[in-house]
């Protein structure tokens, strides 16, 4: 009996030419496709926002790297120099949506900015072209004195060879140090002098500290 009723209903559906099933299925597919399309559009918009923030952060990091490299490019002149960098002086930093929420880190190899946009972490990392150390001159002299028994100044040159010194400096500067973007950052060129026999020669490195 049940089979008959079912057969009857099935035949009725098959013979029904009003196309209601076609209509409903196509409308449902249309609604579904529209929902997917709109979701994709909004996702694209959100992606662009994150991308734009990343580009803004990248521009700030690039500006800082350029400032450090500019001090470094003068490093063959045998004289120390100091430069104060203000993040707020850079227009892109002031105009960007992440002002005051940016964490800045400096190591001997790179500069890193990090912030959050819409719950996602956005980073910008720039490597330095010249030798950088994330501490001040006093700390540098103390580290050299502890390791080599000399401060590395013109009056007290280091007795060791270059490869040993550069390895020690790379290891000393490997750790990240946080910098406050609300305060000025000092970028200072300093010379480390080495005694080779009777001759004293030096090479420059850049100190970044607050």
């Amino acid at each position, binding site marked *: 009996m049940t089979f008959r009723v079912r057969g009857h209903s099935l035949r009725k559906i098959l013979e029904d030419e009003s*196309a209601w099933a*076609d*209509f409903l*299925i*196509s*409308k449902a*597919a*249309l609604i579904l*496709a*529209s929902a997917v*399309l709109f979701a*994709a*559009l909004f996702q*694209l918009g959100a992606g662009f926002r994150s*991308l734009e923030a990343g580009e803004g952060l990248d521009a700030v990091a*690039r500006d800082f790297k350029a400032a450090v*490299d500019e001090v*470094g*490019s*003068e*490093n*063959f*002149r*045998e004289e120390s120099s100091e430069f104060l960098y203000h993040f707020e002086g850079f227009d892109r930093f002031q105009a960007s949506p992440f002002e005051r929420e940016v964490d800045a880190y400096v190591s*001997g*190899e*790179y500069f890193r900015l990090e912030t959050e946009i819409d719950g996602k972490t956005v980073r910008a*990392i720039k*490597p*330095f*072209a*010249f*030798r*950088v150390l994330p501490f001040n001159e006093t700390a540098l002299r103390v580290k050299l004195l502890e390791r080599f028994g000399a401060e590395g100044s013109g009056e007290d040159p280091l007795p060791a*060879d*270059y*490869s040993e*010194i*550069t390895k020690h400096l*790379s290891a000393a500067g490997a750790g990240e140090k946080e910098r406050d973007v609300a305060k000025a950052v000092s970028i200072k060129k300093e010379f480390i002098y*080495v005694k*080779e026999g009777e001759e004293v*020669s030096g*090479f*420059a*490195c850049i100190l970044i500290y607050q």
Partner: protein
Amino acid sequence: MRASSSINDFSLVSGKVPGNISGNVSGKFPGKLSGKPFSGLFRDESGVLEPQADLLSTALAVIGFVVFAALLSQGYLGYEDRSFALEHYESASLLAESLAGAPFLRAGNPDLLSAEVLDGLSGSGGETERERLFATFSGNYVFLIEVRTLDGKWEWEIMPDDRDPVFFLEETDRIAASVPVVIELNPAESVPGTLTVVLYQPGWV
């Protein structure tokens, strides 16, 4: 008669257009041959085309969106590549400029690179000089320095000793920047040339 034949053409496609529509159509759009098949479409109540039209328009919208997204991503990737290359070119240029101005590469005359110093730096006995020269730079960039005269008679290549020679293979990707220099071959002869810094791909970050 012409209108009727055009409707009949359409009815061949749909298969369900009743023949009496042709009379109404021809009465409503007299003499407009191009409008007649469309008027048939508007009056067709069999619902054959409508769902397909929805699906077609949705498919077109989706295809349009996919093409738009693909174009955007292609544009962004192209921009990324170019800005990456430009950034490294700027670094290479900065290194070349600072090296060209280095007193270390000069002898008596402050405006001329000394061929004698270049001989010492590029020779096998110049290890200490090379260490001193490269100590100023961070280890982030793998690069070598090429100095050559414009006439091609003289050429010097200064490579860091603490880098694996595999980094400097011919097939490795690289970016180079040159600056013009004047090279003092001897106290009586100075020739124009170029100082080139070549950044190699393994050091790109």
